[in-house]
């Protein structure tokens, strides 16, 4: 018998091992499951608000809109143009396992904040928002927004959204995860 080269032997070994561990029925069953699942998936009720936001973010014309200035809405708190987010720079905690007023599990709520006056088109009132960062984990990455309505330079830090506002967070973790947008009063 012709001696097999190492390459052939390795491939044969790999094939035999795969065949031993994979039944044809199992393979067909799994394939069927995938096909049926793929067919049914679009029919399931899923939240597509995120997709809408992604489409906007990826669309160059969105920057044209952003340059026109701030036009808030009061329907979708996970969208960057939600009225409370008028001066947010970072990730909306509502998209990261938190809410508009609570941090996601496992993070810590910083006691420090920056502030902005945001107009709510729903009741036509302007409110004071004290943005608070949730800290102690890597950046969430979801619903990244850069809004600068009334935002001031870093030499006016109380109105600056570029600072990692994790001062005083648990264990002094100066690491940014996401931002909540609680109302703390009426601005007008």
């Amino acid at each position, binding site marked *: 018998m012709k001696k097999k080269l190492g390459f052939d032997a390795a491939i044969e070994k790999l094939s035999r091992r795969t065949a031993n561990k994979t039944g044809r029925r199992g393979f067909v069953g799994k394939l069927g499951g995938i096909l049926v699942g793929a067919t049914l998936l679009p029919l399931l009720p899923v939240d597509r608000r995120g997709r809408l936001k992604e489409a906007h973010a990826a669309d160059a014309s969105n920057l044209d809109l952003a340059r*026109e200035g701030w036009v808030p809405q009061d329907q979708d708190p996970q969208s960057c143009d939600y009225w409370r987010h008028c001066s947010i720079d970072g990730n909306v905690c509502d998209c990261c396992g938190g809410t508009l007023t609570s941090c996601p599990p496992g993070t810590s709520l910083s006691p420090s904040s920056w502030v902005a006056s945001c107009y709510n088109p729903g009741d036509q009132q302007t409110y004071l928002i004290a943005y608070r960062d949730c800290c102690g984990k890597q950046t969430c990455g979801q619903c990244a927004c850069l809004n600068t309505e009334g935002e001031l330079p870093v030499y006016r830090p109380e109105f600056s959204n570029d600072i990692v506002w994790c001062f005083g967070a648990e264990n002094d973790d100066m690491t940014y995860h996401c931002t909540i947008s609680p109302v703390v009063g009426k601005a007008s």
Partner: protein
Amino acid sequence: MTIFNLKSKLRQQGLVGGIAAAALMTAAYPALADIAIEEMTLEVAPASDSKRVYVTDPGHFQMTSQVFTIDGNNNKILGMSDAGKLPHVLVGDKGNFMAIANTWYDRIARGNRDDYIEVFDTQTHKVTADIDIPEGRFLTAVFTHMATLSTDDKHMMFQQFSPIPAVGLVDLEANKFVKMMDTPDCYHLFPAPEQNVYMHCRDGSMLKINYDDEGNATQTHSKVFHPEDSYLVNEPYYSDVTNRLAWPDYEGRIYQAKLTADGAEFMDPIDVFTKEEKAEKWRPGGWQLVTIHNDSNELYLLADKRGKWTHKTPSRYVFVVDANTGERLRKFELKHEIDSIAVSQDDKPYLFAVSANEQTLYTFDAKTGKKIGETAGLGRYPHILTLPQDSE
């Protein structure tokens, strides 16, 4: 680990071993076919020149960052350096070294914090010094002037915001941290000759700090040079060669000063936009949105038609004016959404422009505005440009 898991793992390892052997054999076949074995080496980047560009990608406040070294002459990536959270990248000694101020946590985003300075040789990209500093770097979206080298490259300084405002002094000759120097409510660091550094204060004045090698400092305030409601952007242009500061406000008015050992000499502000352009809503916008070619005294401002309070949204146009008079020299369209610009300081200057959303560095002829090249795929959200100011 259970016995079952152990067996399963051993089986997997056997499979991996088999695949590795197969790959090795595949790689070895050409050698058997009498092909010369190629020599394998470590690359060394060419010496820095005025068109060397460092593009920093801090992500969106991510724990790790990347600093890409790019030869702006041909848009070739020469290497990459690692950095921690929100790093400051400083280039000194005519581009021969790069210092990066880092923050790092031993449990990724929590645990013990470690701040340190790494110094790199810009050709080998190897670390030549590692200097521990107190855990006090002011962590913001990266503002390039919140850390600086001294004009003679002997010292490096970084800003602390909490628990008290201060500036950290690092001795780069002795490779050691010296002292935190207390400061009032002031921001940014602009080095001036004879061991002076300036900061901009909340009241609109400049603070001059004169320091000795032990970190003993004296401080002097200048006059207030801009009104309270003229908001200065976070990224001014400053040359540590000419010591000229050019600082746009949100509306396109440029405040300027020369920062010397004797004090700050303020110039009359210039307006980049005409009355008609202001009516058409032309305003500056982006991150590093102003740069000056020192020898020709040409100031470049990144701008677009935009509403109020959109000062960080990218722009598609550059206005070029005489930095002394504000006289319009050129205006060109970049045709990309640009966050930051920087001009090289040689006599055939290139304008480098980075788009964070496109993760691409674009290169333009600074005189004609013609696009020359591009480097794509620069990480996640690259938006910081660092060029040597004093290259030969």
